């Protein structure tokens, strides 16, 4: 008798749990879904007729996308954002892994102090560096250039920290064996250590991509001329009350901007989640 009641209570709990979980999932995903629907609906159709709960017109959506690419600087902004992201990823990975290699596997005078200083940097808010960095970049003549966008972000303390954690797990005797085998310092880095932290490098690359793609504040002040606008800036432009674009155009711009991170996420979700979880649990 009591087992039956327990079973029924279980079902009530389970049902509630599922209802709650699905409802929240809906709230989490719906705005993205809504955005897709707005794009893939007949332009100008009043909301009372079509409340945009599901996509209604594939053709209209494609039209809007084509229009945006043809008539605005969006395609160019896309290219800028991609270039910005790729250059940053290459730089962060290279510079970071070279340094992480040393900090995690070797001893040399000053190691602890230097590493400590970099760690402290993780705690310094961007607020205090962004204006002076802008001034420096301006002095270097790098305003409105790709260098100005990319280079200041290459010494990523977060990236260094993450790679050091990974590399620490490499058994020291593998390095010693390579040393005994006559491998030079850089050879050990390139042939032995880098291949072994492929996972960490991929995760860092993805996280860097997402962060760069979504970077708004820095490109806003460094890329003041239209040729160097990133996707973020263009979207922000569409967004301002001075713009005369319709909801449809704005949402199309938004959707296109959302596509790369979403694709990365769907393919690499395990790595992304693991990367964030790991940095959190060690922090």
């Amino acid at each position, binding site marked *: 008798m009591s087992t039956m009641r327990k079973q029924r209570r279980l079902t009530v709990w389970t049902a509630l749990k599922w209802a709650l979980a699905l409802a929240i999932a809906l709230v989490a995903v719906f705005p993205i879904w809504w955005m897709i629907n707005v794009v893939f609906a007949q332009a100008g159709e009043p909301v009372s007729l079509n409340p945009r709960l599901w996509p209604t017109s594939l053709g209209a959506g494609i039209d809007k996308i084509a229009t945006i690419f043809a008539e605005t600087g969006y395609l160019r902004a896309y290219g800028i954002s991609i270039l910005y992201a790729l250059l940053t990823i290459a730089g962060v990975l290279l510079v970071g892994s070279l340094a992480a290699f040393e900090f995690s596997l070797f001893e040399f005078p000053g190691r602890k102090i230097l590493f400590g200083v970099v760690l402290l940097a993780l705690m310094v808010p961007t607020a205090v560096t962004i204006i002076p960095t802008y001034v420096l970049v301006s002095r270097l003549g790098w305003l409105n250039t790709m260098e100005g966008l990319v280079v200041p972000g290459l010494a990523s303390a977060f990236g260094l920290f993450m790679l050091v954690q990974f590399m620490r797990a490499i058994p020291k005797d593998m390095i010693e*064996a390579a*040393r005994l*085998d006559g*491998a030079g310092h850089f050879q050990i880095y390139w042939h*032995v250590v880098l291949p*072994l932290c492929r996972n960490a490098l991929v995760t860092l690359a993805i996280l860097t991509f997402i962060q760069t793609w979504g970077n708004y504040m820095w490109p806003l002040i460094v890329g003041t001329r239209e040729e160097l606008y990133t996707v973020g800036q263009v979207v922000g432009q569409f967004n301002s009350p001075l713009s005369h674009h319709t909801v449809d155009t704005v949402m199309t711009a938004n959707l296109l901007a959302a596509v790369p991170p979403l694709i990365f996420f769907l393919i690499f979700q395990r790595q992304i989640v693991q990367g964030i979880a790991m940095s959190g649990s060690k922090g």
Partner: protein
Amino acid sequence: MAFLDISSVSKSFGSVSILRDVDLSIEEGEFVVFVGPSGCGKSTLLRMISGLEEISAGTISIAGEVMNEIEPADRGAAMVFQSYALYPHMTTFENVSFGLRMAHKARDFIAGRVNEAATILQLEKLLARKPGQLSGGQKQRVAIGRAIVREPRVFLFDEPLSNLDAELRVQMRAELTELHKRLGTTMIYVTHDQIEAMTLADKMVVMAGGLIQQAGPPLTLYDDPDNQFVAGFVGSPKMNFLAGQLASVDAGSVKLSGVGGAADITLPIGGVGGGARAVTLGVRPEHLTIAGDDAPGALSGRVTLVEELGAESFVHLTVADGTPMIVRARRDAARAGSRVRLGIDAGRALLFERDGQRIRGSLSLQ
């Protein structure tokens, strides 16, 4: 001048001293085993020979040349690590050829050397596999292969068999002996397992507390140890040690009293100097016999445990002063709880000062 000379070598990390004033000469082609308990400094000494550890004081020379300042890769030494240290993302071929590839040797040259090593170690069929697809024993052989291709003048082994299971260990021991016979290269081997040391070594070096306790052929260390530590370390089950008093001395023998609390025993060791004093008697389990309670013999004790192994038994007993002893006897030699008398092969028993030094008298055993 020996092939490898370790001269007054010391090592300390900060204020902690690991090795103190170590001297050792190794001949070319010898198989030398450093053996001792954890922390005795054997691995550190090996790593100093390889160049992976700095030498705090003293010199290490190979073929007359001092190696202290020379890079590990230039010393002509190759090392096999306890964990094999194979590169997991490379195939066997790539692992073995790593050093040669880093030195940018010609492809044919590399292939030749690798195939040679593969033949010696029976790795031909495994060359395309990665470490993850190899068994422990196979990984071990790949690690050895990596060392062989460099044609070193010294092979260094750092506890290479500790990660293998017992059966495999026995097999690999035999293979290592074979390898040594075949290549004839000087080999320096570190282990904590004295059985490995006994079976592999031409010269066995027992270390403890940062010092070399004794160095020599294994059987010499077994039969004629320099001190109590070596006597107790070598041989399993351990040698029995009994406290006693040196009562009197004459030209060819030494009389002990109060051995194990009660017994009087005479040993045929002549020319023992010094006066009456406390000493320690050492006798191996196989040099004792169990007799019934009524048999002659000075030592007696109560049996606490009998371990029957089939072909023989280990009889554990305690003597008058409570010291535990083990006797290696035939099966069914005794029963737990009973009192027994022990016969001693006095000619094989050893005498030590209380501080552990061996008392040899003026006549040394052969």
